């Protein structure tokens, strides 16, 4: 009895939710994802942010504006791309990709939050605002830390080779001197 009642309630809720979204056929609906494409987040190195805007509605979205406030000037510098852009028109059933390259100025834990997108679902309606997905928290490591793990350390290995040289070269030289002296003596004989 309770199960039947809860199922009926769920169905009614879903029906209400889908109808409350407006007439799907004649308005635009944008879903936006924001992703950080980096495998490692390193201070003073490029951080690739990608936004994908999908128009899942039935009509073009007008005056689409993407605004990302989550990279303050104190913590990030923009290398390429714009954090505030607009498109005049986004066709229904299409998607558009927007990428921005920023560079973190400091290291530490950073919470990557959502950006905002505003658009007009149709000529007659008001501006609709949506949030993008949030990539979440990420640890930005310092350049020193990253290099310690990933750089080829050529100088370090060269130094090591030079340091091992005495313990190899010295016995070899002793042997070589005695060898040439001994061979010289046998040759004389």
């Amino acid at each position, binding site marked *: 009895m309770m199960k039947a009642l809860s199922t009926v309630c769920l169905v009614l809720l879903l029906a209400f939710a889908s109808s409350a979204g407006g007439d799907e056929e004649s308005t635009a609906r944008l879903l936006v994802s924001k992703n950080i494409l980096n495998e490692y987040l390193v201070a003073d190195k490029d951080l690739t942010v990608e936004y994908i805007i999908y128009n899942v509605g039935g009509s073009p979205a007008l005056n689409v504006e993407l605004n990302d406030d989550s990279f303050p000037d104190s913590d990030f510098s923009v290398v*390429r791309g714009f954090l505030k852009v607009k498109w005049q028109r986004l066709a229904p059933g299409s998607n558009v990709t*927007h990428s921005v390259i920023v560079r973190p100025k400091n290291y530490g834990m950073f919470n990557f939050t959502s950006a905002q997108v505003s658009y007009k679902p149709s000529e007659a309606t008001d501006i609709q605002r949506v949030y993008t997905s949030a990539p979440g928290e990420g640890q930005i490591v310092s350049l020193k830390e990253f290099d310690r793990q990933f750089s080829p350390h050529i100088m370090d*290995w060269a130094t090591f080779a030079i340091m091992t040289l005495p313990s190899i070269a010295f016995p070899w030289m002793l042997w070589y001197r005695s060898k040439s002296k001994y061979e010289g003596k046998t040759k004389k004989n």
Partner: protein
Amino acid sequence: MASTLLVVSVFLAFSSLVSGDKCIGPQVKSDVYTSKEGPMSTQAVFIVEFSLSCKNNLKNLPLYAELNGQVMPASRAISSDKYQVSWSGEHKSVSSGTYNVRIYDEEGYAALRKAQRSGGDTSAISPLYTVPIPYSGVWKGPLVQTEFVAVCAAVLVWYLAHSTRSRLQS
């Protein structure tokens, strides 16, 4: 002579009327970014920032860009009059070389879509401008790990010493 002049001037006047929405003598200044290091991006990303200046001083034209068969609307920066197009692809499928981003205006875009739908030749439609993107791939790490080289050198030294010693002792 006078009649030719008249014909020419009428033609010029007519063409300037008709070209109300078309950019004459488009000049594009562009800045290009391509992904450089593998760990900094799991996909190859191309970003082109560009500004368009027309001899007939048209501004705020809607522009579209085509790269590798994909056509997308160019976004406009809110704080300046620059445009931006971005494109990303899997590292595996993006080889190094020069890619060409073709920029179209509204008219060119409509012609392009028509040609794409009817399966016609899209390269016949001349773009407003073409931006070349040289891409040399991403750095995925050194060819040979230095640790490997160090181990090889150590093994070589040991081998030389060992073979010399066994030769002497025999």
